């Protein structure tokens, strides 16, 4: 269960194979070859070095940028934005998913609207949100929260719907109160799907953070703003470094989420199939 992450990014379960040698050096061949080719074409002057910048320059820029407080501040702002939007969106998504999952009437009343609005491609909300809420922090936060809400609500809904009828009957026999029902039956049983939804939501939140910073580049500070401004000033080194930073932060967030998921769902790990 711990390997369940964004479907797009899921590490595929490879077919069982004999215990591989500790480190497979073949995987390093391609990156090293590309790095060498990159270095070679720039060093030999085969390409326009303003477009394809030498790797050393990128490294130099990276070192310089990492010491720049404005850049670090941007990263912190982006992270703060990302996590606050994620917190708001996942709380709303959990509530919505629980409501639609536990009550048929809530599902009938909210479901059709939810599933229709979900089809509106996320970034299409941004022009409207920025008109209504301004170009400041608020519209970014609402946008990030909205991006988080869909996967979390869906995951929660499916998890709650998957709670077995037999368990619910046992809970009813024991006359669980509503709160007990929620804490002791529904949330534990739905935990894996909720966790999947949250992990997915975290990925979407980061995409939404960077995307909104790209699209509202002239307002506020953030990693996305830094990168898109580097494009305007044709600073290719900074673009390459910014791209790596965006990817690394995203990957790190994802890894942390998987760690937390594995830790929290630890008790479920050796679940022998009941049937």
């Amino acid at each position, binding site marked *: 269960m711990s390997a369940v992450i964004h479907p797009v990014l899921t590490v595929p379960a490879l077919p069982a194979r004999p215990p591989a040698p500790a480190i497979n050096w073949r995987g390093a061949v391609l990156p090293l070859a590309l790095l060498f080719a990159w270095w070679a074409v720039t060093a030999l002057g085969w390409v326009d070095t303003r477009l394809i910048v030498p790797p050393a320059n990128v490294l130099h820029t990276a070192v310089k940028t990492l010491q720049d407080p404005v850049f670090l501040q941007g990263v912190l702002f982006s992270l703060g934005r990302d996590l606050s939007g994620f917190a708001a969106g996942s709380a709303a998504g959990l509530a919505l998913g629980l409501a639609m999952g536990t009550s048929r009437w809530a599902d009938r009343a909210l479901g059709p609207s939810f599933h229709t609005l979900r089809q509106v491609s996320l970034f299409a909300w941004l*022009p*409207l949100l920025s008109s*209504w809420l301004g170009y400041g922090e608020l519209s970014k936060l609402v946008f990030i929260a909205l991006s988080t809400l869909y996967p979390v609500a869906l995951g929660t809904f499916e998890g709650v719907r998957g709670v077995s009828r037999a368990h619910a009957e046992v809970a009813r026999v024991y006359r669980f109160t509503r709160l007990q029902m929620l804490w002791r039956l529904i949330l534990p049983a739905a935990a894996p799907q909720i966790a999947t939804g949250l992990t997915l939501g975290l990925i979407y939140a980061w995409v939404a953070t960077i995307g909104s910073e*790209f699209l509202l580049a002239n307002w506020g500070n953030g990693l996305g703003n830094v990168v898109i401004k580097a494009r305007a000033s044709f600073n290719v080194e900074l673009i390459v470094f910014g791209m790596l930073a965006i990817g690394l932060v995203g990957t790190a967030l994802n890894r942390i989420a998987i760690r937390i998921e594995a830790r929290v769902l630890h008790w479920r790990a050796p679940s022998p199939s009941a049937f």
Partner: protein
Amino acid sequence: MTPPLQPGKAGSAVFTGLRRFAHAGVGLVLPALLYGLWLLAVERRWLPEQILPAPSLVWQSLQELWASGELQGHLLASASRVGWSLAVGGSAGLLLGLAMGLSRTLRDYLFPSFDVVSQFPVLGWIPLLIIFAGIDEALKISAISIAVTVPVAVNTLKGIGNIPPALFEVCRVYRFTPWQVVRRMVLPAAAPSLFNGLRQAVMQAWLTLVFVELLASSEGIGYLMVWGRQLAQLDLVIVGMVLIGAVGVALDLALRTLESWLVRWRPPAF
């Protein structure tokens, strides 16, 4: 992205029709309330018209844009971008997935790099792509193609990984050529997973398309919205959103239909 939700089981067959009707009606309450609120807000002028255009104005703009053919032009531009990217990125992803799935050697060489690159959000690539590809079609198609390649390759790989080894042995017994193995065993056996990849790819393509069009373009639905936003004509923005939503619903429906048609030969397990 996620398996389609099943509608609730509607109990006894007698009142099914009536109940379904009532249930669908309940689903309309919320949209109707919101629409009422919208009308009321416009009528009472709670918000300036530039921020909240009247529904009639949105409808009028939609009709005008449609009648002038402008809307179809934008839709066509967006659709052709998605189409090309699905073709380019889809074939690249399929080839990559097949190569990594069927050859241990290629997997050893390619998978670690692929794994790292696929975790990077596509949006991060876009500023770099703008430097190389400019802001024209090449940018859109390359960005959307990357967004498509990743889910297709991942799901192809996953689908192949789930094929029971026995099937490969049967192929060996029958002395299938590699092409026959792929065509007659691997592709059908991995079909559900491949389809999953296609579904994710279409959704990612649509997401990325709207983003790229909002960022830099001179036609397409996203451009229509940016333009409306700049002119403070929010009716155009809302028209764009409605269109994007409608295309999203249509894509979802088309994918479901295609899925049930594609896997029709598979007898259901339950």
